[in-house]
């Protein structure tokens, strides 16, 4: 989905709030949330792709105003409700207040049928697909061309794995793009490398 979470290249943000030796956690509940979602993954309630997708499905205003760990919490609660482990009513009764959850999911998809097998040096184009469900292709590379610089082991295909659809595992390719081709006239010169699933790519001759 072309959601609010797809942040790469979006303009209008201010300076990074950088500090030396910055903290990972600021409040005790943040560690508990991190542990609880890990526990849910360990117990097999949901997988990491479902977890990421349920964050992306947060109502956009809620996503943008929530802290990182509130997003974790919302995904954890949403998936526990969707999987029938808990009910929203139980959560709201226990919390004594509203418990905002993520929006419903749109359909996922399986692997793209004709996928290229690639090696470093191959020139590729990112397909111009739009996908209603989960996808791990940042919008800023859609339709852009780049060069493969690395190949990974196979992973579950997120577009399927986040939706309980069976699919073949796929390698990802580290693809090198030029920032000035990604954002013509308005980017600092750099190479931007993205880990791209095989189904998102087509070979360019």
């Amino acid at each position, binding site marked *: 989905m072309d959601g609010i*979470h*797809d*942040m*790469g*290249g979006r303009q209008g*943000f201010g*300076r*990074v*709030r*950088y500090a030396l030796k*910055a903290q*990972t*956690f*600021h409040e005790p*509940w943040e*560690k*508990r*949330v*991190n*542990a*609880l979602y890990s*526990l849910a993954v360990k*117990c097999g309630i949901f997988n*990491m792709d479902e977890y*990421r997708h349920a964050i992306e499905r947060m109502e956009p*205003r*809620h996503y943008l105003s929530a802290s*990182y760990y509130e997003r974790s919490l919302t995904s*954890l609660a949403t998936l*526990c409700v969707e999987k029938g*482990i*808990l009910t929203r009513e139980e*959560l709201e009764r*226990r*919390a*004594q207040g*509203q*418990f*905002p*959850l993520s*929006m419903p999911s749109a359909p996922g998809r399986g692997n793209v049928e004709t996928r290229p097998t690639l090696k470093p040096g191959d020139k590729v184009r990112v397909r111009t697909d739009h996908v209603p469900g989960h996808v*791990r292709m*940042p919008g*800023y590379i859609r339709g852009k061309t780049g060069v493969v610089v690395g190949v*990974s082991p196979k*992973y579950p295909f997120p577009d399927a794995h986040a939706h309980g659809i069976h699919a073949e595992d796929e390698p*990802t390719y580290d693809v090198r793009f030029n*920032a000035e081709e990604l*954002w013509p006239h*308005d*980017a*600092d*010169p*750099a*190479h*931007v*490398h*993205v*880990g*791209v699933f095989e189904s998102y790519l087509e070979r360019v001759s």
Partner: protein
Amino acid sequence: MPDNIHIKLNTASVEARVDAIQAAFEERGMKPAEFIGEFRELAEEKWLPENGARVCAKAWTDPAFKARLMANGKDAVAELGLSMPAHHRHLVVLENTASIHNVIVCTLCSCTAFSIIGLPPDWYKDLEYRARVVRQSRTVLKEMGLELPASTEIRVWDTTADTRYMVLPMRPSGTEGWSEEKLAGLISKDMMIGVARVAGT
């Protein structure tokens, strides 16, 4: 449909919401308190940047290890007793040189090789860093205190799959003959993300 106004006015505090889930898990026999204790220990005592610092220091002093590290990061760090979660299937080590600087981001969420370089700092997870560093890499690094020579090629790595990255900083001159331990003391989490460099490099 979520209504923003309602979210603001009647929403339970985030702490009450966490309590609610924890209590529900407790009732279902999932033993969340024990797991939270274990997790706290991992986060505070195991997933530390000192792990990655050891890896970098060894790579600086042992060319054969470095070759193995660059070829297969996950296997190489395992030699040092360091493990990665099962879903982190691939560790790619990005070597800084006199002409190349690497920096890591996850624009879609905030993935990192946390068992090796430590859990991500707050700013790494902020929208500002995620939105801007891919597009304005040199500007953002400068704002963060790292001014790179104009001739340095910047390579940004966006962690959009479960491949994890770590930056291998440059070894500073004047450290010939230093022990691995002393070298490791030079290296911070931020250097392995790529927003800082070892002094003197």
